[in-house]
């Protein structure tokens, strides 16, 4: 009933609006549940780019439409949505997801439907490692991020004894593994491995392990909501050594939760500072104006992901003589993109769909405020 009001023309399988062909782009991100703040930011970033480009495509005879989906951070929901998205032939691309755990199974579905996906946030190695031709991402992978953190920890912070904690999710375990491997290679000793359970608030058990092991750096693979509490409780227990984490900790929420305890914490992130470039600054200002709130670190990546996709779509339309291309064509065109200049990123995909220009940034919290100070940057 919900969409039955739309005009439809089932014989061709495409929808039209005012004589122009409708092209829909879906976003999939957690709009509800624990990470809905960032999920919202991803949707909004993508929406902003789409709105900006609408006029251009209108001239070419196409109406762009955003279809936001809520994957709830749940693989099952993501796959179920993916099937719905894949089946809707007027959808030509997906921007998403936030969680690799959702992106991996969902992309298997997109591949079946030849539907291209551009990810603004997924870092797990496996996302692009399965040889799927529709899967692309503009951010760095955990096997860049983890080692970058390890190198910084060992070389710059002089950590010799490291304690690694994970939240036992796909993301947390994935990044911690890459970190651990590199740290060992660099000569550091892993003096203990612990884990916490998502959703709990008392992490004293693992903190006591840390106390016993007395490391000189603690690495946490997980998200800010647990990370913040972990740091706070650890500091309460007198653990003063540096903490380090990955992009999952890159959120203003981390500071809200940990408060002053956040000082002496380092994070690696695949998201750069939006204000670093002129375009970025403009983006931040526009975003604020449009949505009446500050962008999250991933907003600009969603914006750029949408940009990359629309560029590919445009290329595909052009090479199809201005007519609606097939999904395969769009996927090929997106993969073929070189040196796309977004608001913050420059995108060139390699044959796996990874962005060769992706970078990892290292930040330090010197005081209890967000964003933290950038102390390093690693490219491929």
């Amino acid at each position, binding site marked *: 009933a919900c969409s039955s009001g739309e005009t439809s023309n089932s014989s061709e399988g495409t929808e039209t609006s005012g004589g122009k062909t409708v092209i829909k782009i879906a976003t999939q991100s957690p709009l509800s549940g624990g990470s809905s703040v960032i999920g919202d930011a991803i949707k909004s970033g993508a929406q902003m780019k789409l709105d900006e480009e609408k006029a251009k495509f209108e001239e070419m005879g196409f109406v762009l439409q955003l279809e936001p989906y809520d994957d709830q951070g749940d693989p099952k929901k993501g796959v179920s949505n993916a099937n719905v998205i894949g089946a809707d032939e007027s959808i030509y691309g997906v921007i998403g997801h936030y969680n690799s755990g959702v992106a991996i199974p969902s992309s298997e579905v997109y591949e079946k439907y030849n539907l291209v996906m551009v990810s603004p946030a997924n870092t797990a190695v496996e996302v692009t490692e399965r040889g799927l031709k529709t899967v692309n991402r503009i951010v760095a992978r955990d096997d860049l991020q983890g080692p970058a953190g390890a190198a910084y920890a060992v070389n710059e912070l002089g950590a010799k004894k490291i304690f690694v904690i994970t939240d036992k999710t796909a993301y947390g375990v994935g990044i911690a593994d890459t970190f651990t491997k590199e740290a060992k290679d660099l000569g550091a000793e892993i003096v203990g491995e612990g884990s916490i359970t998502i959703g709990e608030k008392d992490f004293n058990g693992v903190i006591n*392990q840390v106390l016993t092991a007395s490391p000189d750096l603690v690495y946490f693979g997980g998200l800010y909501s647990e990370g913040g509490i972990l740091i706070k409780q650890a500091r309460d227990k007198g653990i003063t050594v540096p903490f380090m984490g990955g992009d999952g900790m890159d959120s203003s929420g981390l500071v809200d939760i940990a*408060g002053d305890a956040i000082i002496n914490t380092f994070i690696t992130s695949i998201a750069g500072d939006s204000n670093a470039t002129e375009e970025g600054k403009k983006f931040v200002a526009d975003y604020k104006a449009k949505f009446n709130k500050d962008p999250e670190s991933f907003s600009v990546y969603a914006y750029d992901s949408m940009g990359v996709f629309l560029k590919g779509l445009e290329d595909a339309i052009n090479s199809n003589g201005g007519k609606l291309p097939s999904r395969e064509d769009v996927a090929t065109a997106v993969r073929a993109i070189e040196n796309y200049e977004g608001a913050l990123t420059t995108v060139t995909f390699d044959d796996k769909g990874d962005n060769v220009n992706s970078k990892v940034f290292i930040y330090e919290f010197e005081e209890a405020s967000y964003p933290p100070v950038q102390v390093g940057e690693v490219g491929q």
Partner: protein
Amino acid sequence: MLQELLFSLPQVLIDGLALGAIYAVVALGYTMVYGILQLINFAHGEIFMTGAFIGTGFFIMLMGMSWTTAIPQLLLFIIVIVITASFTGLIGVGMERVAYRPLRSAPRLIPLITAIGISFILQDVIRFIAELATGRYILTGPSLFSNQITINFSSISSWFNNASFKTSFLIVLITAILLMVALDYFVNRTKWGTAIRAVSLDRETASLMSINVNKVISTTFFVGSALGGATGVLFAMQYGTIDPYIGFILGLKAFIAAVLGGIGNIRGAMLGGVILGLMEMFAAANLSILTGGIFGAEYKDVFAFAILIIVLIFRPEGLLGKPTAEKV
């Protein structure tokens, strides 16, 4: 191995006690409602969560007012916990009125459905309110009673490491003990307590003994929910950060604690809560040491469940529960 175990033991015991005390008081609420209606009130965890939010909200509000700086923190705490407990108590009573009372004669599992439904509703309503008021729903309250106290265990023997805790730990522990003792008195020493048991056994006959069954049930819900809400405040104070989803897991753990102790049994719930807290903390800190790294802290819940199951196999009525004698 033993050395490492002993080394962290004092701290593990303290942390386990703090967590256990919280489990115990939440478990009391479960046990009370179960005791009278044989209903697993799955929404109880959400009452606890609501209490945590109301309490934190009050703290934030009161701390924002200038005149409160003149009041000692302890007094402030008492005010907040009393107000919160009355609020959640009333929510509990309302919940019983709307969602459980109409189903008294329905099949036993139906109220379980409304309980789950109420849980979802409470989670989302609290989230709305928090998000509308503060822009986010993960809330961090003002830190109260955060002085660190260190006990010098290492001076007793070099086997032990020092243990430290915040003042809030003492407050949690003392409040929890007070609540438990008061409740224990209420249930075991007053006529109300026997009335509660009579109602739970046979409502009709209880009413023939001049017992106002509805009133007894409402009171039980009020007391149980007030306890839950009060614990929410304790929790928020001890751990600082709360979100609308803390109730589910914690509620579940508390329920397990109640079963471990013997569901329906007040002292059992307390014992179960403390044991569960200690066990969890011990497992989280030592499992990987004990198993040479094969099983890590991630198996702490498995450990806790395994103990529970073993206990139930050997004592099917829980640690302090009495076997229900059925005359054939």
